[in-house]
């Protein structure tokens, strides 16, 4: 068999590889058979030493960053197998704990204190902490599941999310002694940590964007001065500060520290002492704090889910024109669309958590940001549509849901900020790979032969009809072939979009925000499509309950989303005049300058 496979492989180089696929030699699939099989690495530990008994993780070897590669149309097809991180034992234990939490959090009669107590008893405040420190050593998949359960109490869920992220930062950033000194208090839930990162936008030209500074005084103590956006003023605070002009460092501020004043949504520090998280390099700060984006996405999604259930409760007993209100197709469509967003967001979150938990040294910053980006942009609009159904009848409830969603969507960071982060990271990755090509495209007279070749090779892309060469359908259930082709189309268009952008702007691409925003949105939708297809395919293959509905949801989602991605990339390709950016930006500039609507009233006339 091996000899036969080798022989086949030798014959299937270059073009013949594609041909062989088309004529259906799936058994001799070169790519699939020769693909790198994941090697399971087990962490070794010494049974003799009780101190090192920790949860073992079976991580696959390090893989290249998934979504960054999508920016250059490279797709790791192995990831179309939806991640299965937890084994049977772990799943059972997680579900048991979630059930305990669920009982309390679904019960509206329970007080906040009772809820806190159940969180303490289930060790939720120590979820990311190691077993040896009396924690759960929960990975991201479990964290999201627990967060979903806690989400009915919005404040507690928000607090818990910050606490978990901070615990991970402390684990990596503090020295062993410092960590040991604080972890017991934090694990019990008697005190929680709040993240203090965001600052107000500079109100004066002389102010830098980031102003909180930490300086080392004569006694060798770090002193923090500045102001942060923060909704809770009690407990520990993890404060991001600049040290030495452009270097960033996180500091842990203990409760009751001097110089801390809390004022509504802002906390002020005046020479407050802080413990530096000096063990953590600057580059890793982003990776750890980035987890809060994943948590925010989960909380947003849970709010949307909650809104759906509220609307169902509202619609069911009501009628319209002698028929149940639920029979109105418009209402059904709105609820259906919201379900699609919930399904897509849920798939993306667990897919991303799987990436983080399943591989060694994962680079999933972009994916986490995309999770938040997706549900922020889609969730908010979907929620508005849902809340239009009861209109003003349940105003208080609607206001509460909308306000929570708004806080989650805009709290921490803005949608534009996330989009820019996604696009700049993607384009940075693409730039490294495509630098030589871009240089030649931007200097066509110096490289005429290359330009002719490029024109020929890009002819399908220019016609918006790329040749599908990734064969993604081979990794999904056969019934998802059309949907996987649509995903493939989107992936293949990404390189062309990056190429267009970089060749148009060169180094200035990092300030072409409008186009970068489109690129980020397209990439986010591709991640959502990938996760949805992978999840539905797996569900159908392993025979989950309602798997056929998942297949329909996935197909519908992909075919609905492809048109958005197509338009986004076409808009990038068309440029600022055809996609109207130029005009919109100009109108906006004039309005910002004059603070008027620019035009005269409709009743104005010139009399002659």
């Amino acid at each position, binding site marked *: 068999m091996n000899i036969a496979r080798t022989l086949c492989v030798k014959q299937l180089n270059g073009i013949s590889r594609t041909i062989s696929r088309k004529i259906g030699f799936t058994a001799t699939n070169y790519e699939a058979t020769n693909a790198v099989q994941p090697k399971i690495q087990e962490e070794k530990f010494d049974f003799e030493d009780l101190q090192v008994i920790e949860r073992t993780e079976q991580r696959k070897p390090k893989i290249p960053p998934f979504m960054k590669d999508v920016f250059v149309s490279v797709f790791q097809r192995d990831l179309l197998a939806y991640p299965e991180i937890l084994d049977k034992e772990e799943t059972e234990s997680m579900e048991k704990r979630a059930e305990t939490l669920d009982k309390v959090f679904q019960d509206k009669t329970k007080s906040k204190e009772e809820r806190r107590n159940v969180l303490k008893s289930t060790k939720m405040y120590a979820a990311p902490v190691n077993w040896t420190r009396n924690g759960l050593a929960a990975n991201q998949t479990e964290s999201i599941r627990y967060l979903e359960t806690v989400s009915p109490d919005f404040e507690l869920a928000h607090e818990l999310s910050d606490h978990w992220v901070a615990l991970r930062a402390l684990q990596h950033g503090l020295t062993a002694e410092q960590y040991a000194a604080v972890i017991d208090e934090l694990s019990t839930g008697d005190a929680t940590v709040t993240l203090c*990162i*965001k*600052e107000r936008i*500079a109100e*004066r*030209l*002389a*102010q*830098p*964007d*980031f102003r909180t500074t930490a300086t080392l005084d004569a006694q060798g103590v770090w002193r923090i001065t500045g102001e942060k*956006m923060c909704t809770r003023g009690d407990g520990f605070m993890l404060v*991001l500060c*600049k040290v030495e*002009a*452009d270097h*960033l460092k996180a500091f842990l501020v203990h409760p009751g520290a001097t110089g801390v004043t809390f004022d509504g949504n802002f906390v002020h520090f005046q020479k407050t002492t802080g413990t530096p998280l000096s063990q953590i390099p*600057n580059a890793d*700060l*982003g*990776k750890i*704090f*980035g987890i*809060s*984006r994943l948590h925010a996405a989960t909380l947003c999604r849970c709010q949307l889910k909650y809104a759906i259930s509220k609307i169902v409760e509202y619609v069911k007993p009501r009628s319209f024109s002698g028929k149940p209100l639920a029979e109105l197709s418009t209402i059904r469509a709105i609820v259906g669309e919201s379900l699609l967003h919930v399904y897509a967001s849920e798939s993306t979150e667990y897919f991303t958590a799987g990436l983080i938990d399943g591989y060694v040294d994962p680079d999933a*910053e972009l994916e986490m*940001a995309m999770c938040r980006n997706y549900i922020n942009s889609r969730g908010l609009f979907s929620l508005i549509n849902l809340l239009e159904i009861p209109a003003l009848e349940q105003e208080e409830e609607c206001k509460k849901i909308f306000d929570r969603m708004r806080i989650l969507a805009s709290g*921490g*960071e803005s949608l534009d*900020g*996330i989009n*820019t*982060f996604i696009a*700049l*990271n993607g*384009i*940075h990755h693409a*730039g*490294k790979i*495509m*630098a030589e090509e*871009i*240089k030649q495209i*931007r*200097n066509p007279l110096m490289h005429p032969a290359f330009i002719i070749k490029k024109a020929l090779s890009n002819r399908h892309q220019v016609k918006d009809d790329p040749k599908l060469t990734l064969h993604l359908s081979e990794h999904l259930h056969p019934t998802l072939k059309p949907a996987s082709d649509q995903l493939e189309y989107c992936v293949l268009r990404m390189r062309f979009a990056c190429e267009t952008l*970089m060749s148009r702007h*060169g*180094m*200035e*691409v*990092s300030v072409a925000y409008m186009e970068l925003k489109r690129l980020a949105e397209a990439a986010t939708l591709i991640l959502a499509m990938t996760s949805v297809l992978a999840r539905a395919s797996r569900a159908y293959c392993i025979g989950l309950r309602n798997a056929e509905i998942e297949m329909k949801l996935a197909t519908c989602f992909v075919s609905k989303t492809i048109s958005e991605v197509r338009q986004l990339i076409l808009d990038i390709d068309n440029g600022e005049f055809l996609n109207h950016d130029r005009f919109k930006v100009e109108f906006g500039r004039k309005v*910002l*300058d*004059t*603070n008027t609507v620019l035009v005269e009233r409709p009743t104005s006339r*010139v*009399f*002659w």
Partner: protein
Amino acid sequence: MATKILRHILRLPSSHFMYRRWESSNTKVAVYDPFANKPKKNKDTYLEAIKMFENQDNRRRGHVEFIYAALARMKEFGVHKDLQAYKALVDVLPKGKFIPSNIFQAEFMHYPKQQQCAVDLLEQMEDNKVMPDSELEQMLLNVFGKRGIPLRKFWRMLYWMPKFKNLSPWYLPDELPNDTLELAKMAIHRITSVDPTMKIEIWQTEEIEACIDKTWIVSAQSETQKILLSEQPPDEPLVVRGPYEVYLKEQVVTYFTLLGKVRPEHKDDFDQDDVSNLKKPSGIPGFIGQTTLPVVKCTVHEQDDGTIVAVCATGSSSRDSLLSWIRLLEKYDNSVLSNLPVIFTLTAPSNDVVVQETQPAAEDVKRVQN
């Protein structure tokens, strides 16, 4: 033969042919000028004079000369921007007589002198930005018919004038105020509109004890300019430049600028085509932008010849009022001015350069070197 004559006529330049007839008689008729001896020169007397002309002779002899004379006197009577006055002049022309009745008359400029007179009247209206209305159109139709040259002129005016009327991005009212302070505010608002955060203040020089010239000052400075001024190094002098002129319709307002140092140009020495190492953000949620400020030129106030840190117009445009302006700037949020030398390079009224070490107001007047 007839064909030859027609061809000859067609070959002749039409303007030559048509205008000769009345050019010879132009300005040769001495007419009584009813406008000369009016004791009061206003709209009422102007219209009264026109009415008198209309009533004195039913045949309205010399009406072309009368209209030309009336047009020349409009400014004197202050009616050069008054549509009603122009209408009254058009009304002087007899109705019906000048309407061509066949194609030859229509083509070869029937009553060219009268038509030219009406065109000149419309031209004067256009010069004075008086927009005609549909009543005037009706009047011209009654006088010259729809094929008359004045009608064509009228229609062109009606097409273009509304478009040009509001073309300027700086809105001005139809009638400018007579008060110079109001005019100065408008002028300063116009020249500082480049920065939407600009704040215009009106100060009195009396606020400075040592001032000689008691007048007003319209000063404009934005927050950005205040910061740029605060960054001025103490060893580099500020320069007061001017007077410059800005026109508001027919009115002129002079203004002065205070110039500071220029920050270095943004260095553009990297390869625009090299995308191998593009900048990327840190990825910390909530952390955006920079921890430091740019040290290069990046605001609209930073021009090649200097950074404009303030602009003003004063009631007298004198050097003393400008000195008071510097003092007032110092008093209102620009304390850095107390440590900065200021050079006055005014092209008028004198050609000398004045160096002023800006110290407390009581002392500084003594130090001015004239």
